[in-house]
Structures are given as C-alpha cells and as structure tokens.
C-alpha cells in the first residue's frame, strides 16, 4: 500500500498526529496487566501484515517529518552523531543493510541498483538520488552511518564486539529516552546500562548480553521498551533537558489525555557481516493516551500497569510526579473487566 506521509512537528507547536491506521498498528508493549523487566527478546523475522514488525525497518506516515526533526537536532548539536575511527566499516555494513532491506521491502519507495561497487540509491519520499562507490567515503556527503541514518527512522547504536562484550562505539541518537551518546560512546554493555535500576541485580543485562553476542547474520532479534513523554517530543535528550524538562509540569486533568504520550521503543539487533559488529536500532513510536484508550483493552491494561509499576521504575522513567494525574485519567477507561493475554487488541 502507499503511505500518506504526514506533515507534522515534534516540537514547538507539536502538530504530530497518529492516523487511525497508526493507532491500530501501535506497538502496545504490555502482554499482561503488570510490568517488570525481562529479557523479552524474540526473533525479528517479520510479523502480521501491516504491523510494525512486518518489515526489517518499518517506514510509516511519520517518516518525512521525523527526518526533518533529526536534521534540526543535528544542526543544533552535531555531537548527536559520532563514530569512533574504527567504526567506519560497520557504518558501511549498516548502509548496506538498510539500503538492501528498504529497497526489497518497499520497492515503490526505495530503489538500489548495484553494479559492482558502483551503487545508485533512490529514496523517493525524501527526494534523494545518490550515485556513489560502496566503501569509498569520498563519494558520499556524510560518513556512511550518518548518510543512511539521516534517511531512516529511529536511533542507531553501532556496537563493536570484543572481549566478550559489546561496545557502543558509534551512533546516531536524536530521539532518545534521556541518554547521551556523547557521554556513553565508548562504553561497554554494562557501563551504558549502569543507570538502569534493579535490572542489574536481576541479572537481566548478563542474560541479554549473552543472547546478543550469539546473534548470527540474517537472524535479527527484537524487543520492546517503553516510557512516558509529555508532548510528542522526539528529542528528549539529556543535552536539552534544561529546555524541555519544564514541559513535564504542564499536565492538568483537562489536558492529560492529549499531552501525555506513551513512548514505545522497538529495539532490534542485527549482526553486521564485514565488521562482525552489531547494529542496535531503537525506533520510537508515540501515542497520546486519548488515542490509546480508543482500543478498550489497551486503556484498561495501561491503567493497571501505570498504577502498579514500582516507584523506583516510575522515577527512573521520569513520570513519578505525573503518575497520579495519569492514573486518574486512565481509570475512567478501566471498568475492571478481565483482559485477554497478549498485546493485540481484542
């Protein structure tokens, strides 16, 4: 099907909206009425038709506007995209993975023509046509990672694998849930997750790392993560926290349905062929509570999850102060009826 791309903003006047189709395919992350950390990994080999899991790199109605927002972030702060010198090869791996995947999965939107190392890339939604020599940086306007991730929704962490660990040695990070690439670049898996409460003690990261180190080429994996964001603000960076933090205090009982968003990350993990590194795309989906409760099962369940989530987690995820407002609002959509297992609407 052809996608109708929205013309919308993720800042200032916040004209972001989800169509009915986008609401229906939203990756609701709770498979039961409560939430605790787990290594909730599964294979990333497609999913139901039309779902966000169907393609390797989901392209949706927000594509063009998200890429404009990314460009604005990078204009203000080029440190959101960094690559340590040994990561260029992994950048080419990533460029190839995305170009091949998108041209195969969305042939009406993207084309890739290859003649040896002479490549011709056509990105119709963004109006880009680029002839370049694969593995020759001088033939692209940016480094390979930056070039392709300026054209792909989601943040990207490029990971080097050595010493039985994964090292975040490059990335494009403009839609993050409050972590800094500039600070975390060069850290290993345990170090960059250090601030996450509880999960270390639960052994989550040890098990997750073991799983990730064993991911083979062509066998990507995925999981969901979530948090809460006031306003459809993609760039909830620590860098700009002193600018956006005050927005968190603008919720009222009247506007909470429109202004409070559930923020879900689809995290996927792909092995890269030449560098033997990994890419860790982190794709952000936003939905207002008002839109979310149009799916009755999701309204009921989100109420129960937010109400019962441990205080430490609500603090870490940054919504502890707004929790009473959110729970009050959601309670109106919870009639106490049982919910069915799994994430899908009834």
């Amino acid at each position: 099907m052809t996608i109708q791309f929205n013309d919308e903003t993720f800042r200032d006047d916040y004209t972001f909206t989800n169509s009915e189709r986008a609401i229906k395919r939203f990756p609701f992350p709770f498979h039961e009425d409560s939430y605790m950390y787990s290594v909730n990994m599964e294979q990333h080999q497609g999913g139901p038709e039309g779902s966000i899991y169907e393609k390797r790199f989901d392209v949706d109605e927000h594509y063009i506007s998200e890429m404009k927002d990314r460009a604005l972030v990078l204009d203000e702060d080029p440190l959101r995209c960094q690559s340590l010198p040994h990561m260029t090869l992994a950048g080419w791996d990533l460029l190839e993975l995305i170009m091949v995947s998108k041209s195969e999965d969305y042939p009406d939107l993207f084309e890739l023509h290859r003649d040896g190392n002479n490549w011709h890339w056509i990105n119709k939604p963004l109006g880009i046509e680029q002839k370049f020599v694969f593995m020759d940086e001088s033939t692209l306007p940016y480094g390979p990672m930056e070039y392709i991730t300026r054209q792909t929704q989601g943040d990207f962490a490029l990971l080097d694998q050595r010493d039985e660990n994964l090292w975040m040695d490059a990335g494009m990070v403009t839609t993050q849930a409050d972590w800094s690439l500039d600070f975390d670049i060069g850290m290993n898996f345990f170090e960059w997750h250090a601030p996450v409460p509880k999960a270390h003690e639960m052994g989550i990261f040890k098990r997750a790392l073991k799983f990730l180190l064993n991911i083979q080429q062509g066998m990507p994996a995925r999981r969901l993560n979530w948090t809460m964001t006031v306003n459809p603000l993609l760039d909830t960076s620590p860098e700009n926290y002193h600018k956006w933090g005050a927005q968190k205090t603008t919720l009222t009982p009247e506007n909470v349905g429109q202004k409070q968003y559930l923020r879900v990350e689809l995290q996927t993990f792909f092995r890269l062929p030449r560098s033997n590194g990994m890419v860790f795309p982190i794709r952000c989906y936003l939905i207002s509570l008002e839109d979310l409760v149009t799916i009755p099962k999701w309204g009921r369940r989100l109420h129960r999850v937010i109400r019962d989530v441990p205080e430490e987690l609500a603090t870490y995820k940054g919504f502890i102060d707004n929790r009473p407002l959110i729970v009050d609002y959601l309670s109106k959509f919870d009639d106490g009826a049982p919910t069915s297992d799994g994430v899908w609407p009834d």
Partner: protein
Amino acid sequence: MSTFKFPPSITSRPVYGTLEPRSGKHHLMIADAEGAEALFDLVEKDPDLIAHAQIMYFPAADDTGYAEKLKAISPSKLYVGPSYSAAVPRLRRILQDAHMGLQVYLAGTEGLIGQAMSEATNAGIPHTAIQTEHRGSVARRMQCVHCKGITENVVTDPFTCSHCGLNLFVRDHYSRRIAAFQGVCVDAEDPGNVPPKRELYS
C-alpha cells in the same frame, strides 16, 4: 587519614584498588596531593622498585612536604608539576617512549586517576598494566551534559557548571573516555528550585 571507602554504586562508576608492586623494568607513577602516600606505601612493599621508577607528582596548593619526601626516596626521575593539565604534553611524550612491560601506578584524586588512565590506554598501555589507588579528596571531575564543559574539583551536590552556569546534580554515571562524571540540570522541571548544596558523601 587519606583513604576513603566509597559506597557500592552503579557499574560505570570506577572502583579503585591498592597499589601492589609488579615486576618490570620500568615503572611510571603518577600521583597528586595525598596520592603520594600511596606511593610511599608501594615503595615500602618493594624497595627495589624505586630505582626503576619515574614519578610525576602534582602537589596540592597547601602541600605539606610530600614533594620533598618523594625526592628523598630517590626515584630514577621525579617531575613535580603545577597541575596535571599542564603536564599532559610531557605525559604523552613519556608514554610515546614507553617500552613493552611498562607498569603504570596512578594514585590520588579521581580526576587525576581518570585522566591519566585515559592517556595511558589511548597510548596503548593495556588495562592490566595499570593500577589505581584513590587517596585524599573525594572531589569529582564533572562534565555538564548540557554545554559539555568540564568543572574540576566538584565537592558539592548540586554544583554550578563553571561554563554555562546551570545548577547541576552529581550523578555516579562515569565516562572513561571523558574521564568525568555526568552533571545534569537539577531544576529543569521547576526552574529556580535548587536544593541546598551538600558536601559529597556527607
């Protein structure tokens, strides 16, 4: 008393040990302020070490004679400098000439240890050849996550960024690459509501 036992913290926060003599032809010792005491203890454990030891030392402003005492134990080379940052070009030159098997000993404040560690690893010295021991002040080297400026010798939480002036709280999240802890705006959600400053670990 120059030793301080840091409470358990998150996994990115460095932990320090106690310097132990290692066998090797060359020993590079870098210390500031009360870090000198860790070097005295080290040399006491193996008096033969000092003849092959090069020391770089940065006394505190109120130095009570550590520099003199270091001279008295007769290292093969002793450099006493006004500040670590002034000595970085010298350190880089020394590391450039380092031979295989060089043992590195870092002692003193976290800022000194972190920065010297970063120089040493960048120069290709393996982690396993570098030992650290914290002595003296618990002051931290902090990076402002907003303006990226470094504020040295932070002893309170919150503190004021010496570059952009924001009031920052002190996190335990630590970057070895930057050799600094992370400082984040403390009154972002309620501008002007800055909690009173408390001394670190008080």
